[in-house]
């Protein structure tokens, strides 16, 4: 385990060094990520300045959801490039090479690239989190901080799991199924607003099938210490981020199942 971890850290260091060879390209890409995320927030801000509030949620409360989801997504996105490009890996037959190496395929794919440009989205999300917490005058007790960390890590697990599922489907379809983008990018879009504003079937889907609500909505409600319009109890809000870990474990199980059904394209 520690050996795998050491190998993974080496992979990551190599990848960052490689990206720093194209410095201008890196800065522009990171800036693009920053601006792309910032425009989304500009949209939220514009709507609040027009309408005042959203069913008793204020701008900065929504900003807290927004920050948690975007930081979590940026983490998962940066670490999952290998899975993101997996359709191509299968199509070209490169997966065979991974199979003959004496390390797990998940480790090798997770170590393929640390997409450092995602730091743009990460910073933007963290900035919004900071401003939101200052405006709401949140008192960061140890419990609150732990809950925030759990929400972000749980969120990163859910998004990483989605990328793994996306890659696993390529074992059967050979090419990457772009439809999964509705769940990843669409999930970010959805979870940056409080879940209680959506229609019930949609809410259930993002709670029980893809547990984004458990890692963003419930813990943030607990951090805000407000009554949940959906009526969830406080203890549930606190343990909800664990659903992210469960989702990731299930995705990895699906990956192992897919791997057993792999047939090389032979190219």
């Amino acid at each position, binding site marked *: 385990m520690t050996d795998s971890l050491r190998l993974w850290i080496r992979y990551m260091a190599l990848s960052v060094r490689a990206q720093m060879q*194209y410095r*201008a*390209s890196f800065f*522009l*890409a990171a*800036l*693009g*990520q920053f*601006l*792309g995320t*910032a*425009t*989304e927030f*500009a*949209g939220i801000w*514009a*709507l609040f*300045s*027009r*309408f*005042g*509030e*959203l*069913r*008793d949620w204020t701008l900065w409360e929504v900003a807290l959801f927004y920050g948690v989801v975007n930081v979590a997504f940026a983490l998962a996105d940066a670490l999952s490039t290998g899975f993101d490009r997996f359709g191509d890996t299968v199509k070209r037959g490169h997966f065979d090479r991974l199979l003959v190496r004496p390390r797990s395929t998940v480790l090798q794919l997770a170590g393929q690239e640390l997409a450092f440009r995602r730091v743009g989205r990460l910073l933007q999300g963290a900035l919004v989190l900071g401003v939101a917490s200052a405006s709401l005058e949140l008192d960061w007790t140890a419990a609150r901080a732990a809950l925030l960390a759990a929400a972000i890590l749980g969120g990163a697990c859910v998004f990483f799991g989605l990328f793994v599922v996306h890659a696993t489907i390529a074992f059967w379809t050979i090419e990457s*199924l*772009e*439809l999964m*983008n*509705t769940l990843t*990018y*669409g999930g970010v*879009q*959805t979870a940056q*607003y409080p879940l209680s*504003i*959506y*229609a019930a079937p*949609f809410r259930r889907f993002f709670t029980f099938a893809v547990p984004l609500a458990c890692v963003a909505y419930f813990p943030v409600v607990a951090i805000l210490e407000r009554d949940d319009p959906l009526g969830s109890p406080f203890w549930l809000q606190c343990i909800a981020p664990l659903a992210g870990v469960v989702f990731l474990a299930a995705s990895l199980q699906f990956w192992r199942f897919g791997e057993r059904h792999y047939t090389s394209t032979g190219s």
Partner: protein
Amino acid sequence: MRPYLAILSARYRMLLQYRAAALAGITTQFFWGFIRIMILGAFYAASDVDPPMAFAAVVTYVWLGQALLGMLPWNLEPEIEAMVREGNVAFELVRPVDLYSLWYMRTLALRTASTSLRAVPIVLLAGFVLPWTPLADWALAAPAGLAAAGLWMLATVVAMALGCALTMLVHVSLMWTISGDGLSRVVPSLVSVFSGMVVPLPLFPDVLQPLLHALPFRGLVDVPLRIWAGHLEGAEAWTALGGAALWALALVALGRFLLARGCRRLVVQGG
């Protein structure tokens, strides 16, 4: 004119082949449209503010925006990008045609192909299927009238010209940056917020309206969509349309000027 039309039709037919990718795009856009409508609906339902645009008009705005996404300068012509990076642009330079017009036609093929693949199914689903479901309130409405429909067509042609002129500016910037990174990473986010794709422009705070009107981007989405919905009519519509057309001409002139400058200092990549 013949060679330009030939490249337009050849590229258009080639790009139409990517149907599987378009299908995924349509599903994504449909899902996206729903999320946007649900969010905007929640704002409208909970508020007692008098909004500058009725909810039904906003729904139509969102659907049409999703349908016409292909007209926005959100990606590059893959062949032009590869040519500049790999040095094949040298062949393009020796052709006995005007380079700007040639690339403009390639860009036009890219924009029209991706628009025609997406627009028809989204309009059919949102305009003709949704009204028969329990979600009828979220359906795309017909144009506000015959005059609005005619003017919308004109505005769409202008929007297409403007979208291509903006994409061309990014293409021309490749002459300096060589790689596809650079402007192409920054332009799409600016365009999406200032054109009205993120939030319909009339919903932005009133103090920002003069700025949004002065920028070239509203001609891409906001002007044609509000004309369709009947939210922009009469003299106001004609002024907005004229502004967008002037912007398109100005950006074409700027692109031509920069391309001529770029060609003079172009270093052809070997290989």
